[in-house]
C-alpha cells in the first residue's frame, strides 16, 4: 500500500497534521517549518508524479489510469480505497500542490492560533489531494467532504467581516450540494453492475459496466451534477461564493477558489458525465443554460462590486461557470479547455486572493473606493495584480487565454443554433471581464493616491514575493507552453468521449 506514490499525497498532509499536533501553539518557527517542509515535499511529489506519468505515457503505457491501487475497505459494500490518476488528475494534483505551497507562504503571519489554522489547512489539503487521487466514489466523496468542512472554521475563526454568517452560509450550501451528490452516488452504486453482477463504487468499473438504468440516469445526473455544480458555483447556487470569499482569510480564499472549486468541475465530468453518459447527452442543455447564465451573470455582477474580494468571487463564478459550460459541450476540445480553465483559474484566482490579502493586510480596506494609486506605493504588488488581471481577461501568453480559446473552439464544434447562441454569449464574457478587471486596476492601482496614509505602506516582503512568483511562473508557464498539458488532458478525455458517443 505504501509503495503507491499516490497514497503519499494523503499521508503527507496527515503527517503534517501530526507534526503540527506536537508543535506548541506559540512556536511559530516550528509550525512554519512543518508546513514549509510538508508543502515542499508535496510539491516535489507532484512534480515527480507528473514527470513519471508523462514518462510512462511517453513509453506507450496506455491504460486509462496509472499508478492504480485498490485496497478493500468496507467489504460488505465493496468499498475500496482505490487510487489512480490520469493526466487530468495529475495536473490537478500539481495545481493543488502549487497552491498549497503558495498558500503556506501567503499565510506566513497568520494570527491568532497559527497551529490550529494550519491544522485545518492541512486537513483541507488532505481532502483535496485525496479527492483527486480517488477512483472510488465513496472515498472520493469522503475526501470531498473532508475538504469542505474545514472551511467553516477557517473562515469563521480567521476570517474578517461578516464571517460567521458567511462561513455558515458557505458550509451549508456546499453541504447541501453534497447531500444531493450523495444521493446521486448512492443511486449510481446500486445500479453499478448489470443484474446479478457485483456492485461497485469503482468509477472505472462502473464506466465499463455502463449499467445504470436509463430511466434512473436522468435523475442521478441531475443530482450529481447539481451536487458538484454547487461547488462549481453554478447559477443559481453560487451565492455562497461572494460572501464566503469575501470573509475568508487569504490562504483559504486561495485554496478555496484555487482548488476547492475545481473539485466541482472535476466531479462533474468524472462522475456525472462519465458514469451517466446517456443522461449527459440528453440533459446537457439544461445545464448549458444555467452555466451559460453563470458565465455572463457573474461577469456582469462583478462590474459593479466595490469590494475587491466580491469582484473576484463573482469573477470566479463567471470563470468556473465557463468550466462547467465547457464540460457540457461534451466534446474533447471543449472539455480539454475546461480543464485548462480549471488550472488557469486556480492559479490566477489564487494569485488574486493572495494579492488582495496582502493589500488588505496593509491598507485594512478592500473597498476600491477607498484606495487608489497603489502602483506608486507598492509597485511589486501592483504589477502582480495587473498580471493576474491580464491572466483573468485572457491575455495571450498567460494561462487564461489558452483555456478560453480552447473552450471556444471546442464549443463551436456543436453547430446547432442553441449551442452557438450560448457560445456567443459566453464569448461576450471576455469583454465584460476586461471591463471589470480594468475598472479595478484603474481604481485600485492607477490614478492618484486616494489616501495619504497609504503613502507610508511598504511593498511585498520576501515570503509574499515567493508566494506570488510561484504562481506567476505557473501562469506564464501554461500560457507559453500549453501544448504538453493540452495533449495530456486530451488523451485523458478519450474514455469519456467514447462513453458519450456510445451512449447516443
Amino acid at each position: 500500500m505504501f509503495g503507491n506514490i499516490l497514497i503519499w499525497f494523503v499521508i503527507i498532509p496527515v503527517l503534517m497534521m501530526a507534526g503540527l499536533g506536537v508543535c506548541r501553539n506559540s512556536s511559530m518557527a516550528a509550525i512554519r517549518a512543518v508546513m514549509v517542509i510538508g508543502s515542499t515535499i508535496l510539491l516535489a511529489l507532484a512534480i515527480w508524479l507528473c514527470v513519471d506519468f508523462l514518462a510512462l505515457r511517453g513509453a506507450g503505457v496506455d491504460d486509462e489510469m496509472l499508478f492504480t491501487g485498490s485496497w478493500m475497505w468496507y467489504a460488505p459494500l465493496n468499498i475500496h480505497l482505490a487510487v489512480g490518476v490520469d493526466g487530468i488528475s495529475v495536473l490537478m494534483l500539481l495545481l493543488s500542490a502549487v497552491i498549497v505551497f503558495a498558500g503556506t507562504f501567503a499565510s506566513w503571519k497568520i494570527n491568532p492560533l497559527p497551529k490550529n489554522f494550519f491544522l485545518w489547512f492541512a486537513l483541507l489539503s488532505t481532502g483535496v489531494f485525496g479527492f483527486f487521487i480517488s477512483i472510488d466514489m465513496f472515498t472520493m466523496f469522503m475526501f470531498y467532504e473532508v475538504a469542505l468542512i474545514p472551511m467553516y472554521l477557517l473562515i469563521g475563526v480567521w476570517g474578517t467581516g461578516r464571517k460567521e454568517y458567511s462561513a455558515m452560509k458557505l458550509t451549508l450550501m456546499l453541504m447541501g450540494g453534497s447531500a444531493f451528490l450523495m444521493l446521486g452516488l448512492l443511486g449510481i452504486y446500486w445500479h453499478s453492475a448489470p443484474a446479478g453482477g457485483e456492485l461497485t463504487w469503482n468509477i472505472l468499473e462502473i464506466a465499463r459496466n455502463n449499467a445504470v438504468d436509463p430511466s434512473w440516469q436522468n435523475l442521478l445526473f441531475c443530482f450529481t451534477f447539481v451536487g458538484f455544480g454547487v461547488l462549481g458555483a453554478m447559477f443559481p447556487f453560487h451565492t455562497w461564493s461572494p460572501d464566503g470569499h469575501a470573509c475568508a482569510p487569504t490562504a483559504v480564499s486561495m485554496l478555496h477558489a484555487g482548488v476547492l472549486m475545481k473539485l466541482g468541475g472535476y466531479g462533474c465530468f468524472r462522475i456525472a458525465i462519465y458514469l451517466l453518459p446517456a443522461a449527459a447527452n440528453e440533459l446537457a442543455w439544461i445545464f448549458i443554460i444555467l452555466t451559460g447564465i453563470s458565465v455572463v451573470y457573474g461577469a456582469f455582477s462583478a462590474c459593479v462590486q466595490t469590494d475587491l474580494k466580491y469582484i473576484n468571487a463573482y469573477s470566479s463564478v463567471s470563470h468556473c461557470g465557463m468550466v462547467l459550460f465547457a464540460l457540457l459541450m461534451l466534446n474533447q476540445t471543449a472539455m480539454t479547455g475546461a480543464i485548462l480553465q480549471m488550472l488557469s483559474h486556480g492559479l490566477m484566482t489564487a494569485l488574486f486572493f493572495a494579492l488582495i490579502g496582502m493589500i488588505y493586510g496593509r491598507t485594512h480596506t478592500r473597498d476600491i473606493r477607498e484606495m487608489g494609486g497603489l502602483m506608486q506605493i507598492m509597485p511589486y504588488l501592483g504589477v502582480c495584480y495587473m498580471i493576474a488581471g491580464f491572466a483573468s481577461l485572457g491575455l495571450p501568453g498567460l494561462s487564461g487565454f489558452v483555456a478560453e480559446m480552447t473552450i471556444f473552439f471546442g464549443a463551436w464544434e456543436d453547430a446547432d443554433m442553441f449551442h452557438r447562441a450560448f457560445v456567443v454569449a459566453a464569448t461576450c464574457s471576455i469583454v465584460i471581464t476586461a471591463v471589470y478587471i480594468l475598472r479595478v486596476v484603474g481604481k485600485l492601482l492607477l490614478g492618484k493616491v486616494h489616501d495619504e496614509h497609504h503613502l507610508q505602506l511598504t511593498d511585498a516582503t520576501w515570503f509574499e514575493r515567493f508566494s506570488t512568483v510561484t504562481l506567476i511562473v505557473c501562469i506564464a508557464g501554461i500560457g507559453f507552453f500549453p501544448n504538453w498539458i493540452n495533449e495530456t488532458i486530451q488523451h485523458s478525455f478519450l474514455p469519456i468521449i467514447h462513453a458519450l458517443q456510445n451512449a447516443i
Partner: protein
Amino acid sequence: MLPELIILGIFLIVFLCDTFTPDNGKKFLTPLTSVLFLLATVAIWIVPSCQESVFGGMYVDNAACKAMKCVLNVGAFICFLEASKWISTKEVVIRKGEFFELILITLFGMYLMISARHFLLFIIGLESASLPIAALVAFNKHKYESHEAAIKYIMTAVFSSAILLTGLSFVYAFSGGSLYFSDIAAQISAGEMSGLLLFALAFVLAGIGFKLSLVPFHLWTADVYQGAPTAVTAYLSVVSKGAAAFAFFIIFVQVFGQVYSAAWEWMLYAVIIATITIGNLFAMRQKNMKRFMAFSSVSQAGYVMLGAMAADELGLASMMFYILVYVVSNLGAFAVISTIEDRTGYVGMDDYNGLHKTNPYLAVAMTLAMFSLAGIPPFAGFFSKILIFTSVTGTNSMALYMLVLIALINTIISLYYYLLVVKAMWISSDAPKIESFKAGCTEKTALWICVLGIVFLGLVSYVYQYFVSSVGASALLSLN
C-alpha cells in the same frame, strides 16, 4: 442467558457492597462497578453462548444479539465514567449505590428486550428498562427540574406502556393464540390487512417509539433530558435509545415482516420524516445544551430508523454501527457537557463562548463530537450515516430514495445547529465564561474513549464488518 446472568451478578455484588458498607465508605463503588462491568463486557463478547435458544424459544442469544449488547455496554461503561464526578457530589453521594444498581437493572431489561422472542418477556424487559430510569431521572432531588422531568417521564412512560399493551392485545387477536414472535409471524400475513391490525401496529410503534423518541411520541424527550442529571440524560439518549432501536428492528422485521410493505413501512416512512424534521427544527433554536442534545437525539433517532426502513441484514448491521457511532459521539458531547456542568454549573450554549481559549481540549473533543454527529468525514458519524443511507437505497424504490433525500436535506439543518456549538466555542468573540480547569481522570478516560471512537470507528472498517458478519451468522431475519 450469560449476559443477563453476568449483569445480574454484578448487580448483586454492587447491591450487597452498597448495603453493607457505611455511607462514607462508598468511594470504591465507581471503580468496582466500572471494572466489573468492563470485564463483563469482554466476557459477553468473547464467551460463546452454549445454547442459542432457550426457554422454548422465548429467549435467543445469538451473535447479533451479543453484538448489540456489547454496543449498549460500551455506552453504559462510558456513562459510568462520566457519572463518577457527579455521583460523588454531596447531594447525591448517598444514592451512589442505587445509581449503579438501577442502571444495571435497566441494562438487564434492555438485554431482555433484545433477546426476547416472546412479547411477555419483551414487555417485562421494556418495563425494566424504563421504570428504573424514572427513578434515575428524579435523582437530583435538590433540583426542581429533576422532579419535573421525572413526572413527565413516568407519566408518558406509563401512558405509552398502556398504549403498547393495548396494541399488543390487538396483536394477540391475530396471533393464533401464541405470543411467540415466530408464531405470530407465521399467522400474520398481508392478505388479512384490517383496521385492527393497523391499530395494533400503530400502537406498538407508538409504544416503542416512545423509548426511541420518535415524533410524535417524543415530546417528553426535551424536558426530561433537560431536567435529568446529565449522566442519566447521556444514558437515556444513547443506551436506552439504542436498545429500543434494536428491539424495534427485531419486532417489526421479525414479527411483522410479512406486512412490511403493506402497512408499517408507510407508518415508519411518515414517522421517520417527521422525526428527523421536527427534531431538527426544534434543535436549531435551543440554547440549553442538554435540551439541544435532546432534540438532536430525536433527529438522530430518525436516522437510526432508516436502518429499520431497509429491513434487511445490511440495514440491521448499519443500524448497529450507527448506534455504536452515535454512542461514542453523543457520549463524547455529554462528557464535555457534564464535565463543564459539574465544575461550573453552566449548560447554556452561550456559556460555551470562547471555550477554546480556556479549555482547548474540551473544545476539541466537543467539536469532534459535533462533527461526528453531523456526519462530517473523516469522523465516524460520516460513515455510519452513509452506510445507513446505502442500506436504505438498496431496494431501488423511488419512495425510499426520496426518503433518503429528505434525510439528507435534513442533515444540512442538523449541520447548522451542530455548527452553532462549534461557533460558540471557536468563533464567538465574547469573553469566555468558563474558566480553565483540569478534568478528572475518569472524565478524561471517557473523553478519550469517545474521541478515539469518533476518529477511528469509521476509518477502521473492522467494526462494521464484525456487525455484518454477526448479523449474517445469526439468521435474524429468517422466520424460525
